[in-house]
């Protein structure tokens, strides 16, 4: 009996969620093939945070790593959820768009370069407001410019989830991969409660939160593609598969008439039962855990 069989799976399993953004991005690449670009030692920090007495981070909470994923050239762009909630500022937004634009340029010149977006973010950094919002619009544009030429894969693992304007970047991606713990939505529960009241959304109701925003729901209703376990090896394997994916003639966010009809068919007289949407909307996407 081999040594590997004597070690239970739950002992061997390494949590992806417990890794910081940098280590998450690194874990996706073939060993020895990757390099971080404009990392902390380049010291390109936010010029706006110190003006408000907020300590900056040397990489502005965005890590760009280029290398090979299962032999294919790829760039991973990870947002560090532990810094300012993973929010987008001038610098972190610029790193993301620049990396996507360079991947698009290379891909169009015949050097296909996939992009993996590790989105752990609350959206726009309020301390940089309009530059953050403009950056988000530019990220969305750059994802759309790359998508016809190479896969753009959004990976949301938790615990911050993907909210605010960056949820649109997830929405226009070629593929979205989520763990059960992950959440994806435009407005978080606290914001809904604040704007529309507790009856509309009780932000303390964790079951409700995951029933609406959680990975299992998003995959089950067909707005995300794969539900994956919080496991470094399994996530790496899933991403490797998507990096090799063929380009498609049409992506989810181009399916206007399908979803327009689905929205028109909604009964809005009461709150919508999330589970019913899984039945009505699932495009045959496998909602079970990989």
């Amino acid at each position, binding site marked *: 009996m081999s040594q590997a069989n004597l070690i239970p799976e739950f002992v061997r399993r390494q949590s992806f969620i417990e890794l910081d953004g940098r280590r998450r991005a690194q874990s996706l690449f073939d060993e020895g093939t990757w390099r971080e670009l*404009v990392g902390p030692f380049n010291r390109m920090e936010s010029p706006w945070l110190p003006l408000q007495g907020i300590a900056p981070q040397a990489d502005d909470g965005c890590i760009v790593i280029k290398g090979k994923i299962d032999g294919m050239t790829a760039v991973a762009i990870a947002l560090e959820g532990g810094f300012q909630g993973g929010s987008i500022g001038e610098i972190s937004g610029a790193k993301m768009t620049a990396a996507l634009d360079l991947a698009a340029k290379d891909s169009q010149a015949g050097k296909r370069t996939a992009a993996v977006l590790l989105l752990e973010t609350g959206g726009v950094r309020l301390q940089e*407001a309009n530059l953050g919002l403009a950056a988000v*619009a530019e990220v969305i544009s750059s994802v759309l410019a790359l998508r016809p030429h190479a896969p753009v894969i959004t990976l949301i693992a938790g615990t911050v989830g993907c909210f605010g304007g960056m949820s649109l970047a997830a929405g226009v991606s070629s593929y979205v991969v989520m763990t059960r713990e992950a959440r994806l939505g435009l*407005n978080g529960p606290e914001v809904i409660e604040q704007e529309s009241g507790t009856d509309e*959304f009780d932000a303390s109701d964790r079951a409700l939160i995951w029933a609406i925003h959680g990975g299992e729901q998003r995959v089950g209703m067909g707005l995300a593609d794969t539900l994956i376990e919080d496991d470094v090896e399994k996530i790496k394997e899933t991403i490797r598969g998507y990096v090799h994916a063929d380009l498609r003639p049409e992506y989810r966010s181009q399916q*206007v008439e399908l979803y327009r009809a689905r929205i028109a068919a909604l009964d809005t007289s009461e709150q*919508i039962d999330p589970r019913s949407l899984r039945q009505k909307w699932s495009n045959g996407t496998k909602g079970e855990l990989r």
Partner: protein
Amino acid sequence: MSEHIGLRGRTWFQALTENREPMAGDPSSILASEAQIGDELALFLCVVPNPSSRFPCVRDGQVGLEEAFALAHHLRSVIIEDREKPKAQKRPIIAIVDVKSQAYGRREETAGIFFAAAVSSDAYASARMAGHPVISLIAGHAFSGGFLTHGYQANRILAFDDSGIMIHAMHKEAAARITRRSVVELEQLGHEIIPMSYDVRDYAKLGLLHKLLHVEDPQRPTAADIEAIRRDLIDAIQDARRGATDLSNRLQSEAAKQTRKAGIAVRAALEAQWENA
């Protein structure tokens, strides 16, 4: 303040389309019409409040599910219809923006408003990338998800130089609460930190606007005002046609080279390091 939201949008939509009846088939919150601009036809799009929306959280002029998909529907139709035309003949698209925000509701989150917003911004960006000149005219408010859904993918953005124009990521009260400051403190911070300002003149310093428009009273435009704005729109359309179909122009203005110099430097650094990786 809130009673003005959407009124300016409708005012300018009606003015620029010469009170033409909007296309049928849309929810009441969407005004869509083809109208003459210069010597060509353009598609005008506007989101307005619909107090009797079947979605309770969009009755004040928020951009919700139906609105996002209606916009995308019109945009995709124009893209398909003009598919074979040369770039110079692709119809311009004019987004008239006066939106309170995105919709904050449970129905919206359940049904995936993040995705609806993505579908609309995809359609706008696709129109731009296909060669349609996409112009945004900010007639009132342009906030966060609402602006991302309707208008922020434009080639060129124009806004009135008026205190009623507000472009930002979050309304003052909510932003104050989240950043744990008073509204007054937040406004003061905006004087020192340009991207945080709620003043459209400070927004103009970010280099994202093609032009600040001067009209005596944007809520009650005269015939002369409307003609002047039409000329500004035509100028923006021509400028868009001369330029790239991506958003690179947003970093090329003199203002951007100043206020966005850190972002520009990061892009240059990434490009310099990219090849050797």
